[in-house]
């Protein structure tokens, strides 16, 4: 099997499902959520992340680049992404870790090796492995194989997904997935498309079918003032999910901690139109879900 592009494998991850977990972040995502705090997982290719704060402008990256894609301009290093082939010559030469590669091509065995390293912690904490992204469902073959591997080792599995994929993919992985962390970002498709770039009819449909199959589902609803932190939206989400028999939800208030990564990637971040909902508002949203008989409503991950 071919390698897969992984943006990060986070050990001691404690907010992506129960217990102490290892979270595997696949690189590549069909959505472009305005508030995304992991922009380095968007593209299906390796990217250079540049941290100006670590950079001494020594120019080693400039001479290292075989494509002539790297230049120093206005006291900063600029990379021509069209010319850059992500060959990593510049990151190897950057002793200050100012230039780092986002995305590593890893083999199945390599990922398995890292997963297995923390089995002692999974078993003591009731933890396991979470597959996230980006969108891990974009890599069905690798994802299935990794899930099967985990199950063969009796490791708890969670899949953190936007649900934006064909039903076949979800249907195939469901038998090996102990828990779905399923994002719902808007009730109406038009709002969803405005905020994420894609409609959500497929997402709702998939959720419905998963629920029918009896999958263990934990909803995750990011709430962003200026986007979707609207009473009626939230109420409709709660109502529809409740009708499917879903009982667990994490309400995730917006934060802008991914902002610095946009700078590192040389991309724009629209921070003016978004903010964190007030505590009172979050409590109100929590109440809405509780009124719809959700038994496990948490604010935060």
């Amino acid at each position, binding site marked *: 099997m071919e390698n897969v592009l992984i943006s990060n494998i*986070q*050990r*001691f*991850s*404690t*907010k*992506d499902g129960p*217990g*102490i977990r290892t*979270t595997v972040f696949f690189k590549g995502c069909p959505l472009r959520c305005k508030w995304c*705090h992991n922009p380095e997982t968007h593209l299906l290719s390796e990217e250079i992340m540049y*941290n100006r*704060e670590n950079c001494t402008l*020594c120019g080693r990256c400039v001479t290292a680049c075989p494509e002539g894609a790297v230049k120093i301009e206005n006291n900063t290093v600029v990379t021509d992404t069209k010319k850059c082939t992500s060959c990593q010559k510049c990151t*190897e030469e950057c*002793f*200050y*870790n100012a230039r780092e590669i986002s995305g590593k091509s890893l083999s199945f065995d390599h990922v398995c090796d890292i997963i297995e*390293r*923390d089995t*002692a*912690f999974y*078993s*003591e*904490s*009731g*933890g396991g492995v979470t597959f996230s992204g980006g969108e891990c469902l974009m890599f069905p073959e690798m994802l299935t194989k990794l899930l099967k591997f985990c199950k063969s080792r009796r490791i708890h599995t969670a899949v953190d997904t936007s649900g934006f994929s064909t039903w076949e993919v979800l249907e195939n992985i469901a038998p090996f997935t102990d828990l779905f962390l399923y994002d719902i970002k808007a009730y109406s498709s038009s709002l969803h498309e405005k905020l994420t770039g894609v409609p959500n009819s497929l997402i709702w449909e998939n959720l419905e079918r998963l629920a029918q199959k009896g999958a263990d589902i934990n909803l*995750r609803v*990011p709430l962003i003032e200026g986007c979707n932190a609207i009473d009626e939206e939230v109420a409709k989400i709660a109502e529809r999910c409740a009708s499917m028999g879903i009982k667990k939800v*994490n309400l*995730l*208030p*917006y*934060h*802008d*901690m*991914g*902002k*610095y990564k946009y*700078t590192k990637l040389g991309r724009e971040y629209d921070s003016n139109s978004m903010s964190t909902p007030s505590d009172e508002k979050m409590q109100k949203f929590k109440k809405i879900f509780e009124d719809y008989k959700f038994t496990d409503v948490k*604010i*935060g*991950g």
Partner: protein
Amino acid sequence: MRGYTERTKKLREMSVSTNPALSIERAVIMTEAYQKYEGSVDIPVLRALAFKEYMERKTLVINEGELIVGEKGHDLQCAPSFPELCCHTIEDMEVMDKRELISFSVTEEDKKLQAEKVIPYWEKRSIRHKIMQSTSQEWKDCYAAGMFTEFMEQRGPGHTGAGNIIYKKGFSDFKRDIDARIARLDFVGDENAYDKKAELEAMKIACDGIIAFGRRYSEYALKLAENETDPQRKQDLLLIAENCKQVPEFAPKTFHQALQMYWFVHIGVTSEVNPWDAFTPGRLDQHLNPFYQKEVREGTLDYDRVRELMECFWIKFNNQPAPPKVGITLKESGTYTDFCNLNTGGITEDGKDGVNPVSYIILDTMDEMKLLQPSSNVQISKKTPDAFLLRACEISRKGWGQPAFYNTEAIIQELLNAGKSIEDARHGCSTGCVETGCLGKENYALTGYFNIPKVLEITLNNGFDNYTGKQIGLKTGNPEDFGSFEELYDAFLKQMHHFLDIKIAGNNIIEKIYAKYMPVPFLSIIMEDCIEKAQDYNCGGARYNTYYIQGVGIGTITDSLSSISYNVFDKKNFTMAELCEAIKADFVGYDRIYNLVCNKTPKYGNDDDYADTIMKRVFNSYCDYITGRPTIKGGQYRIDMLPTTCHVYFGEVCGATPNGRRAQKPMSEGISPEKGADTNGPTAVIKSCSKMDHLKTGGTLLNQKFTPAVLQGEDGLKNLAALIRAYFALDGHHIQFNVIDRATLIEAQKHPEEYKDLIVRVAGYSDHFRNLSKALQDEIINRTEQSFS
């Protein structure tokens, strides 16, 4: 103010607000006693008579409101000196009075007595003087170079703890045991019968000494009671008088008396010599539980009273600063702390879960008292209930480092591995910092720290020490001539063996000096099998005898060797000669080499087998060369991996190291990774550390730092507990946690290079603080609670 009752609030406040002072009384009484008896009696008897004289003459103190009595000096926070071990010069006294850290106030009167009375007698007689007279020049050179330290240079072999025998017998009972043993001496067939008799007689005199001390307190309390106008306090004093009439002469009958019994023994042991302080009741919950159960059943004791008594007991420990240290000993152990280390929990001698009601009361007490002494820690066994572990985690999470966690199963296996019986092993304890031993049955002493990274420095200098400007090592060749990593490692090993042999040769001399001149008849009474063997604790009388040499800097040495192996031999990033030049220049002007070794080299603490394999190799080389070697007392050498504050001193005597550690900066501490080397989170650190075979040691020390947010809430608490359980399942010996507050985060932002391994909670994951932008750091400083996933 902290304290469960008004009484303990006041006592605690008094304890923490009083500044440490030197107490000259003991030195004067010892001098007079020696002048009276020296030459006319055998040395053990001389020691016992001097001890007795101190117990009969020392100033009595009953602090306002206290329920457990007895101070080591003439008042609380007053530390006696031990001129027979280390005779302070007037200059020493001036330094300890003036120094900024760990100071002791010294009066003009003290200095006068020291100059006129103490110095003239002890100057040439002290153990410290004898050691400096007897050890070889090469030992002295290595000592001056900071290759190793010497624990017994101004403190006696200590470190052990009391077993349960003192809760079952009084000193009148011990006297009877001693008499019975004397009656069985065989003057016909045993050539040592004379020496044995002297030792046993000495023990009897020491019994009389402590009994007299108790009686004096009883009478003193009675006298105070007569003049006391407050009826409540009058009752307290009468109770104290009654308790001190019972103990230490007779076995304790009540919970309160059990505490007072231990305390008298503690004063006795730590006054007889300065057993470098770590004497402890150890498994206190095991020892007290029978008293607690009986009295609760009878209705004479309730939770409130137990709490109050326990807090009074805690404060007694805090009233005793460790006797003043000077010179290198101060550097290796720069603290007032006495290292009295309690192990709560664990298992019972018959192998059952040891957590009992007293265990929980101890946790409540340490939580309320928040005192550095006694160092209150827990033993976690696979049988320990989660409720106990979680309560301990809850306190640990508050961030001041207590309790630390010890692995009961590891302690037991370490002790069994050292040849102890299963029952004795189950009653084992980690004392001092993390050192394993059998309470009440073992003389196990740390003998000195060993500077492992310095061995590499000497190797890279062909045996020459830059710090002292002397050739202290072997000529193993110029580093540029090593054709492979194996050749380098071979030279490193030769140097290490060379220095360890020098250390052990010195130990043999010092062990003999103590055996000959510094018997401890009082401690020998309560240490099983000293009476039966009719042999002093310092001559091999205890059931088990172990000497430890503590390895320091495993993180620094691992990363340094990894740096050479990876950069010089594998990747050929630079040559050995270039590296040596860079080290010599403290990496100034060698940016490329510096950043390669810092940022692009495999390091210990990341679950990276390249580095961890080197760690294992160094550890095994060190461990195997020492473990099992005989000591003079008929015991064995073993190793520990802990530093106290010595990693800072060992750093000061070394130049830059090949891992990018700058000159004079501290070495890595315990078995923790080099500061900033670990970048894969706590589970990776634990995995790396557990590749070391802890069970071959007598204790290892691992520090972990967290921000409060990582451990917040019910989930955070459970994850902390799970980390501990997992580490212990992997045979880790000990782990402790620092939970970092906001002020530290601000410091971390100002000096990121010093906080490279600080982990913070970012969003749905944890990250290294240094990896975040300033803006994000600001955000986290102001809002440590994260909620977005």
